[in-house]
């Protein structure tokens, strides 16, 4: 890397382009260590590759199961302690705000909605630990969750209304007979778009946030290094970058919660439209 040795003595802005390629290499989902010289590639089976995000997906699943056992062990009429109180707060929040969207018998769908909320939340939060690649930060992860939601709300609608009544009921009442097949096809297409939009929304939020954090951390590091080396001109800018980095981190924390809430809220809306009103 001759270009890097030559530019090692240059200021931070000149070294930026070399470091950006390093950052982009670390975002490659098939590598465990981001440094391209010591690339450890996860096994590919022909066309299909397991990404490092999948490993964090599995880690998040184990964490959720462990958290579930920890909460169940401490169940009592009056909750005591910070952990169980915060868990109860989140559960009550999902119950009151998300499950209440379903008008017809919300208690039946609470387990699925709670699972969706906590799964997305824990995956997003694990992505905020420096060096991790969140399971929801790759389109495969979010698409898998969205397909599960699609299958679930269709199954729920079929179980509630009966097979033929459910598919026939996609067309709203009061539509005249000649254009009903066209409306039905449009409804099927819009139903198939729903998991795609769910997946892209979650993926784009988490992936973009990850990249932004990476870039801000990069710039903070470069400016801090220049300050330590004594290049006086960069002292003024380095606290600014650090503050921006902290602000972006707080924003990503908020985004983690909001995206989990939006995912489960939209699932509740789809369940409500599938179960519907008689």
């Amino acid at each position: 890397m001759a270009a890097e040795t030559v530019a090692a003595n240059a200021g931070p802005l000149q070294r930026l382009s070399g470091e950006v390629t390093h950052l982009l290499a670390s975002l490659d989902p098939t590598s465990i260590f981001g440094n391209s010289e010591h690339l450890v590639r996860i096994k590919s089976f022909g066309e299909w590759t397991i990404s490092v995000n999948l490993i964090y997906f599995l880690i998040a699943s184990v964490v959720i199961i462990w958290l579930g056992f920890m909460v169940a062990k401490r169940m009592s009429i009056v909750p005591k302690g910070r952990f169980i109180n915060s868990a109860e707060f989140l559960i009550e929040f999902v119950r009151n705000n998300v499950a209440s969207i379903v008008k017809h018998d919300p208690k039946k769908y609470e387990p699925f909605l709670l699972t969706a909320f906590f799964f997305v939340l824990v995956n997003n939060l694990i992505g905020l630990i420096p060096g991790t690649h969140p399971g929801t930060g790759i389109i495969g992860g979010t698409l898998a969750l969205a397909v599960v939601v699609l299958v679930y709300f269709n199954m729920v609608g079929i179980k509630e209304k009966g097979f033929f009544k459910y598919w026939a009921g996609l067309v709203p009442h009061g539509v005249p007979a000649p254009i009903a097949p066209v409306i039905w096809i449009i409804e099927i297409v819009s139903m198939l778009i729903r998991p795609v939009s769910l997946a892209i929304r979650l993926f784009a939020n988490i992936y973009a946030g990850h990249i932004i954090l990476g870039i801000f951390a990069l710039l903070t590091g470069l400016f801090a290094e220049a300050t330590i080396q004594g290049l006086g001109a960069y002292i003024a800018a380095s606290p600014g970058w650090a503050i921006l980095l902290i602000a972006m981190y707080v924003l990503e924390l908020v985004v983690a919660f909001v995206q989990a809430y939006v995912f489960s809220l939209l699932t509740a809306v789809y369940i409500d439209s599938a179960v519907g009103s008689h």
Partner: protein
Amino acid sequence: MSTALASFAYPLGLIGAALSISWLGQTAAKSIARQPEAGSTIQTVFILGAAFIEALTLLAFVLKLIG
């Protein structure tokens, strides 16, 4: 020149999203002020609407990053 112009794609798309979400926020605030007891319903509607609009914007951002 065309690659420089291509970097305008994302900000131009962002204008529509920013305006829509601000409009939505304004209407939500006004209607909560008018009828505070409907507050939580209006809050739900606002978050839902903002999520849909945000999805489009972020799709543009990620597509720009990828290709």
